[in-house]
């Protein structure tokens, strides 16, 4: 190393060291993001079957998207799902974060309990929900029947509306802990003195919430919302495992449709074109959120 850097000035050596430090990350991003992204873009201009020969077809895949009824249906479904699932995750996450904010006895245990579902893989948790929702052995039917809220076992996944609702319930259960932790960090970064002086001024709970807590948590809220929205737009596992896109294909999310085209119908090129379109939509969505929730000077 000395031989290599001996002839370099201190400034040059400092830059080289910096470069070496970021090199692993650069390599990681290149191998797992930049190259696959470029490859996806390249494939989207091809008729690229999963097995067999590929051929260049220009923008045909993109123009076909306009006539794909299911693509539009899936986009519509995915956005409706995102719209319905985001508020409960966020509001419940905020309530939980407020509840576990202060360091009192056993608080670690509660935080751990609320966070636990996040640690389970989405595939595993989806299978768990399939079992809990079952009409013969599932716990939900058992509880509802015992409480006389139902007179016979309910098939939760047989109707589009109930299928969507139970999926939302399962996702809220699964992800709310993560939002809670993010918001908790934001809450704890607000100095107690602010609340104390507000107390002295006679401010009530809501006044403190709207004039101290929320404004000071702008960045955290932006992060939590952006992560939650991205996660919802990219939802796949829960639909693939719990509803299999049913009933009557009413719960095929956009990533599910990309998966189907790429690996079930073997049309990787078409799936790539859809992925690029989805990426563009997501970037636009995230930019809008960033703009709306930006820190105002």
């Amino acid at each position: 190393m000395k031989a290599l850097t001996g002839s370099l000035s201190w400034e040059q050596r400092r830059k080289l060291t910096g470069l070496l430090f970021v090199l692993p990350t650069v390599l990681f991003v290149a191998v797992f993001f930049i190259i696959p992204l470029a490859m996806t873009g390249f494939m989207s201009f091809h008729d690229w079957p999963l097995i067999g020969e590929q051929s260049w077809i220009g923008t045909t895949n993109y123009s076909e998207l306009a006539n794909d009824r299911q693509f539009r249906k899936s986009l519509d479904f995915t956005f409706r799902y995102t719209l319905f699932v985001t508020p409960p995750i966020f509001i419940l996450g905020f309530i939980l974060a407020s509840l576990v904010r202060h360091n009192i006895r056993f608080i670690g245990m509660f935080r751990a309990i609320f966070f636990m579902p996040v640690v389970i893989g989405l595939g595993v948790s989806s299978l768990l929900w399939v079992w809990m929702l079952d009409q013969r052995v599932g716990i939900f039917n058992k509880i509802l029947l015992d409480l006389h809220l139902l007179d016979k076992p309910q098939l939760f996944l047989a109707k589009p509306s109930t299928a969507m609702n139970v999926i939302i319930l399962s996702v809220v259960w699964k992800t709310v802990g993560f939002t809670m932790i993010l918001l908790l960090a934001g809450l704890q970064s607000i100095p107690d003195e602010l609340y104390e002086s507000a107390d002295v001024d006679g401010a009530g709970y809501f006044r403190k919430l709207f004039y101290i807590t929320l404004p000071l948590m702008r960045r955290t809220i932006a992060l939590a919302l952006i992560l939650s929205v991205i996660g919802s737009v990219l939802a796949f596992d829960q639909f693939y495992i719990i509803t299999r896109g049913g009933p009557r294909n009413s719960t095929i999310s956009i990533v599910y449709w990309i998966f189907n085209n790429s690996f079930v119908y073997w049309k990787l090129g078409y799936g790539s074109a859809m992925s690029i379109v989805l990426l563009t939509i997501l970037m636009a969505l995230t930019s809008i959120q960033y703009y709306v929730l930006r820190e105002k000077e």
Partner: protein
Amino acid sequence: MTPRRIIFAVLIMALCIGALPLSAQDEDVTMTMWVRNIGAQVQELVDEWNALGGAQIELTVIPPAEFITKMGAAIAAGESPDIASIDLIYAPAFAAAGQLLDLTDLVSDLPYADDLLPAHSELGTYEGRNYAVPFAIEGSFIIYNKDLFEQAGLDPESPPTTWDELLEAARAISAIDDETYGYYFAGSCAGCNAFTYLPFIWASGGDVLSDDYSEATITTDPIVREALELYRTMWEEGLIPEGASIDDGSSFTSAFATGTIGMAGTGAFGINTYRRDHPELNLGAFHIPGKDGGAASFGGGDVIAIGSGTQYPDEAWAFIEWMMSDETQLDIYAANNRTPVRVSLLENEYSADDDLVLTAASALSVGKSPYSLVYNDLFNDANGPWLEMIQVAIFDGDIDGALQLGQDRFTQIMSG
């Protein structure tokens, strides 16, 4: 030692090392084989083969709905299995993609080459070359519970032969009590309904595809509507358990095993499963009937092929040849209620007095299999048009909408 001797010794050693894998070849070879889970029978077969002590086979069982996806992905990644038992419907697509070894010469050298079941052999052929041979023979038929027939006041020895008789029998059985149902089908399983529901249409002289498989005939063939109405009637009258609507195939076989179902579509795999796990069931079988009589069956099952990337083509073929031999076909296949892959062995010492096995075997004589490169997208896809049409018609009751939806999506897929 002189230099010449040293070179000589090194050469001899190299030859010995090179020869080692040859002499120890078979014991060291482990081939991979993939199969979709069509019962435990394939494992038994592979165990028998492995016990012979030659090249070993490691079996991987894959859920049927995921087989094509996994196989396609494995091939794309260059990790396809040495031997694959493929749903016969997909064999042409894999052969067309150049992923299967050409077996034409090996098959034509077999003394019983002309004895292999013709429908399965045909689907193993692509552009006149042979890429796969019959492996699992499944003709669909309807299995029924004779005890429930008797309780319902029906003659257990004369099962239905028309749609009306089927409906009447289902009504009578459902009337026994609230826990008993006349009929069962897996309402969220696309492939199960291609296997057991399409034949209702075929047996009545109808079809959802034109004879040359070039266009959809869902809205133009009146039988398709009538077949949907038959199931819709049974569903509306509560002759089918409610849980059927969300069965993705996981209860396709097990629902009937509860003993509370009168009739259900199945294949030869069902016989072995029910007899082994539920000997208490008093079983009967009949062909899937047409509207006013007649019968049809989906000639399904698997063909077996060798992956074109295999390192062990000879060993793989040895297994396949052993599988098709007289001894294996009789002592393992027929003895375990499996349908043999050779015409001359269909009737044998084991099947002689067995009505169920004979029905399963004779279903093949009225069997039909659609030959289409887009079969998966049309019929087998869980989000495809076939299942969506069935669900909209039967569970939502919108038969007109279902027919139009089916026609449109079939046409769209077939055109491009």
